[in-house]
């Protein structure tokens, strides 16, 4: 974002970076043309990020819906490989991410821990993609001539509101189980967390996720959470770090189309937890006649 002193001396122009959102595989600015200031904790101005509008969110839902059936039908094994590739890409850019996290106020140690944990988290959920069905699915004993079994199915399009406490990790801990379960996702990052989030877009865009499977927005929480909760084409809403008022309003709005609502504490507990995958999948039970 900021220019380097070295270039000033050599006369070379700075190549500055414009952080853009990821919608449907494309890096875009907000259609509204609006931007937000990002400041370091000391108040130092770091730069601008996009301020997503309701329409950006709607466009992201369209992209996510379009990608939903393809991603749901991708083999679990391939889903795992792609998630693992995201870990590889993040590993390769670990230094950049540490710098970005430090620029928004994390200590060097905290930044390093966060990047490492984010990578490990991607590997963790990559491993679960072809295993959770065996754990959560079942063959059910019934007292009639039926073969009765339950399997998981992705819910579809999931919206995720990320927290700011752990700017990178909060986002990855939301995305990984949602896409591991075969859903497509639209995330919202706010405040300083927008910077590593948009940086993560470049990692995800080179990880072989089909366009639209992961869509990253940044903006103002109060402006968009309501939209996420009411949108009829969103099947589940997961939030992190919501206050009681927001959660109550979201729960009520989610009832409109019976979307599932999972408010999570931003305390870092349960990052590595297969039940996170279970949150955004449905269990479908089939009665199959047997014998004559």
């Amino acid at each position: 974002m900021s220019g380097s002193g070295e270039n000033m001396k050599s006369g070379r122009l700075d190549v500055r970076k414009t952080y853009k959102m990821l919608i449907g595989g494309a890096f875009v600015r907000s259609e509204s043309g609006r931007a937000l200031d990002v400041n370091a904790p000391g108040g130092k101005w770091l730069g601008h990020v996009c301020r997503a509008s309701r329409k950006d969110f709607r466009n992201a839902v369209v992209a996510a819906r379009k990608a939903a059936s393809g991603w749901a039908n991708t083999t679990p094994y391939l889903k795992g490989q792609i998630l693992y590739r995201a870990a590889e890409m993040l590993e390769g850019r670990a230094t950049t991410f540490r710098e970005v996290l430090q620029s928004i106020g994390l200590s060097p140690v905290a930044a390093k821990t966060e990047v490492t944990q984010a990578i490990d988290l991607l590997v963790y959920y990559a491993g679960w993609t072809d295993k959770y069905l065996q754990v959560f699915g079942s063959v059910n004993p019934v007292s009639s001539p039926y073969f009765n079994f339950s399997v998981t199915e992705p819910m579809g399009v999931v919206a995720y509101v990320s927290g700011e406490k752990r700017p990178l990790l909060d986002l990855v801990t939301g995305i990984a189980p949602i896409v591991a379960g075969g859903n497509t996702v639209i995330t919202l990052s706010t405040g300083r967390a927008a910077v590593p989030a948009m940086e993560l877009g470049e990692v995800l865009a080179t990880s072989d996720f089909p366009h639209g499977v992961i869509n990253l927005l940044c903006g103002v929480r109060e402006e968009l959470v309501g939209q996420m909760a009411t949108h009829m084409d969103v099947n589940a809403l997961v939030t992190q770090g919501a206050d009681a008022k927001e959660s109550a309003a979201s729960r009520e709005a989610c009832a409109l189309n019976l979307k599932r609502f999972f408010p999570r504490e931003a305390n870092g507990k349960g990052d590595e937890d297969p039940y996170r995958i279970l949150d955004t999948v449905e269990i479908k039970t089939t009665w199959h006649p047997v014998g004559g």
Partner: protein
Amino acid sequence: MSSSLTVSTNLNLQAHPVDEVGIRERVARLATRSIKKASKVEGLKLALSMVDLTTLEGADTPGKVRQLCTKAIHLHSGRKDLPMVAAVCVYPTMVRIAREALQGTPIQVAAVATAFPSGMNPLAVKLEDTRYAVAEGAHEIDMVISRGDFLRGDYARVANEIEQVKEACGKAHLKVILETGELGTLDRVRLASDIAMQSGADFIKTSTGKIQPAATPEVVLVMLQAISDFYRKTGKRIGMKPAGGIANAKAALNLLIMVREVLGPAWLTPSLFRIGASKLPNDMLMQLEKERTGVYQGLDYFSND
């Protein structure tokens, strides 16, 4: 039935060169118009009343056609303020089923005929195709021009075919499909429009929906201008039907804007403007529901046919 060629004596093929850059520029400028709130709602309802709800698949069954007709009558359950669509457009063998399903409604039944979609059959077969569809009860016939004849310059044959099909139509309205995606240039689109109108078309229609590109805004604008010129010369109002690839509400509203700008409000009626589509109504319904409820809609809550 004669397949001999009687060359039209009154075919006036004055060249109307199309300013392609000008057309693109005007299309781009018209597309920037934004219609909001109450006007948008009215525009969408008007556009819905102009839809020719279409199913033209090899896999069409009586059941599917009946389902489509139900959709044509009841666009969305729970809303009484919506119009019915203008017509249902089907293959000739489905006309009778559509007529039965639409009995008692003002919805017209349109049938594609003349060896749709390619038109690569002898004239006698095309005329028989047309007569069959009319006898089955079609109110409107959507014919295709012979693009092969047109492209090799045999305009008289194209005109003659349209004239004879028009005669075979009897009281049924005739829409002439130019299949602009196969014509190549806007100049040819203009020429084909002129030939069709002079040969007795009640409507000119862009495409079959089987070829891409279909109803691009550029093509629609050229055809509207041809209609405008024809009206000024003859006083006869020819209808317009864009079809193919019109999938969202915004595109439909843009079409209305173009019609209003080029032809004026007199053409903003289902008797002079139609939109051929199958998926479009649901997108317009989603927009209408968004305006009513304030929340963005999903296709899960709209009938899928």
